């Protein structure tokens, strides 16, 4: 009974859902942290809008990565069709986890670095690039998460 409801398809979908939900939630949190700092800067100086907007947008990529993986899992399910085995379903579930979990944490932490970097822009707009670099350091781990998830989905 249990495995009739929680069958292979369920686990695969669950994995895709987690990949997107966790990563996108992380991005939402990260962007909002950066956005709060950004609004403060814009309130002082409207000309810095574009600079802070770019920094604010940086933590949004985790959500995109989660989206990509969720979609790839669904594509894999379509390909496997009804022949999907329990093991394949569970593997797809696990494959969604790296980008989901890493995406969530890196999104939040990247948002914090982005907010701090917006502080750089508030003082010296010329140094925006340095802020971007610092912020991108965090992103690397989300990229690794995405990559590992992609490779894992590819293995099923």
């Amino acid at each position, binding site marked *: 009974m249990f495995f009739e409801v929680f069958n292979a398809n369920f686990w695969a979908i669950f994995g895709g859902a987690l990949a997107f939900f966790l990563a996108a939630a992380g991005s939402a949190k990260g962007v909002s942290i950066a956005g709060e700092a950004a609004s403060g800067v814009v309130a002082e100086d409207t000309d810095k809008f574009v600079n802070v907007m770019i920094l604010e947008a940086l933590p949004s990529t985790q959500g995109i990565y989660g989206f*990509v993986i969720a979609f790839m899992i669904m594509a894999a399910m379509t390909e496997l069709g009804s022949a999907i085995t329990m093991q394949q379903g569970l593997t797809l579930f696990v494959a969604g986890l790296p980008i989901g979990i890493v995406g969530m944490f890196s999104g939040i932490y990247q948002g914090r670095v982005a907010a701090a970097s917006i502080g750089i822009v508030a003082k010296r707009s010329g140094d925006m690039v340095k802020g971007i*670099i610092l912020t991108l350091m965090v992103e690397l781990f989300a990229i690794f998460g*995405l990559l590992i998830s992609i490779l894992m989905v590819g293995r099923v």
Partner: protein
Amino acid sequence: MAVVGMKKLTLVGLHDDRHRILSRLMELGVLDISDTEINPEIEHLFKKEVDSDDIKELEGKIHTLEGAISVLRPFDKRKKPLFKVRKDMNHHDFSAVILRRHEVLAEASRINRIRTELLGIKSDINKYNSSIIQLNSWNALSIPVESTDTLRTEIWKGMLPAAADTEAILKSIDEEELACSIEITGSDNDQTYITVYVHNDDAQKVSSILKRNGFSNVNFPGLRGSVSENISLMEEKIGENQKEIAGIEENLAELSLHLDEIETVYDYYSIRKDISLMEGEIAAGKRVFFLEGWIPESIEEKLLADLSEKWVVDINTRHPLEDEEFPVLLKNGFIADSVEDITNMYDVPSHKAVDPNPVMAPFFILFFGLMLSDAGYGLLMAIACGVVYFFVPIEDTMKRFMKMMMLCGLATVFWGTLFGSWFGNLIPVLSGNPSMNISVWFEPVKNPEYMLMWALLFGVIHLYAGLAMKAANLIKRKKYLDIVWDVLSWYVFFTGAVFLVMPYVPAVPESAIQAVEPYGIYLFAVGAVILLFTQGRKSKNIFGKIIGGLSALYDLIGFMSDVLSYSRLLALGLATSVIAGIVNEMGSMGGFSFTGVIVFILVFIVGHGINFALNALGAYVHSSRLQYIEFFNKFYEGGGKAFAPFRRNTKYIRIKD
């Protein structure tokens, strides 16, 4: 294609010509004038004279003009170009405007006065509005607002906090049988508005009861008559003021036709201020002055001829001394020139080092293309930026940026074609056969592991190019032996490491592994030994040498993580095409009907628009990052001072000869 050679120039001229010579230098805009150092031997002859009164006066005028411009800007009806660009103006027109500068300045002061007047009227309106709000709470007041007493009574108007129990207060006053009547004239969320009529004898007692409950008195200074009379009077006044504002604004709109002139005069005064500031930086004697600066070698002759033709001057030039720092001006070809601003955002290259732009440019552009990786997006971007670059008048920095984006767009078309991605899988979807393969090379979406291998390989090539740049720097400094220790040995070491890990990288062809793996261990060992013995060589003591050597081996981990960092080339590229595919799929859900086509077009524009914007931004920042962190890390020497010639730094106009 490189750092431009500079010469140090010393110019001695007559004091009387000083202003004109500086103006001419500014017009030519080729000399980076240094803050002149007066050495002690001639200190009694020369000094720096800053005419701060003159500068202050000029700043005052600039401030006036700036104020006038900001007042008039909202009324500016001139056609606004998409990209802000300074207006070209020839000498003749410029002089014509400048002749009238005093009139223009007077007009600017007048505009500033109008602004003050306008602000006064606006604050009056605010005052009336807030009074009206206050009076509205007293709408039910039945007596004139100014009445405060009669022969035997006192009348208080005031407020009790809403939290106070008004009923209880009335009751307690009643119970003490005080000669007092309280009228509640209104209330809102915060207060209850009351009017108190009290007999003089009981005023003390009532007052203390009310005070205890937080009563505060309200007066209406300067007002007479009933509340409603006052309100309508004020509304009338507001109406009058608004009419007045409309009149003034009409006037300003007319005055805004003079913006061109005001802006020109603004630039004229800021040029004059710059000259005055510069006069304070050069050495002035009684009869002569002298200044020092850097000039690009190629223009030296022209400047010499130009100045000595017009004035009595003595000009000497010399090459920079060994180890003397000179300002860095880069001169690059069509492609390398476009990424100079990316490099300068990181740091201006050192005058001692090789200009990295020619090597960086192809990597930057190709990596951008690889990460955006959609031929459709690339084509749109290349066309849009190309049109702006070739046909729209824009400032130089913007022009370089547009050129770079155009090239990046072309690179994107290149990769997109290889990967068969035109707006994602639009062509296969429209043709009704989603699994159709139109790639020239292969589809990364179908085979990400293969793409990962290539991404890492591109990374290795990029890093090796970085090491080659280090060799180029060493050659420039003639430290040939260091190339063997600091570059070649790393090549051997890293190549060995790459060969050794190849079997663990997915999708590497078996034949390639078999061909190179046996050599891996030898290269690795040879490289490691050389590094172990050489990397600590600059250290003085034996421990330093050992630790230097060992820590160099640790750099292997840095190298590996650098290479892994290039996996973003795959990840970002895939993200673009997968999302583009989702957009196409969502759009085509409506089928081939009238509404279906409309839905498709809407989804197409919005979906691809967002996907393009996000991924183009991502490609731009990540491609920059790969240069800054991975590439520059291997060799870059910044800390240069950018060549900043003394020139007309204008905001609104460009004077053409």
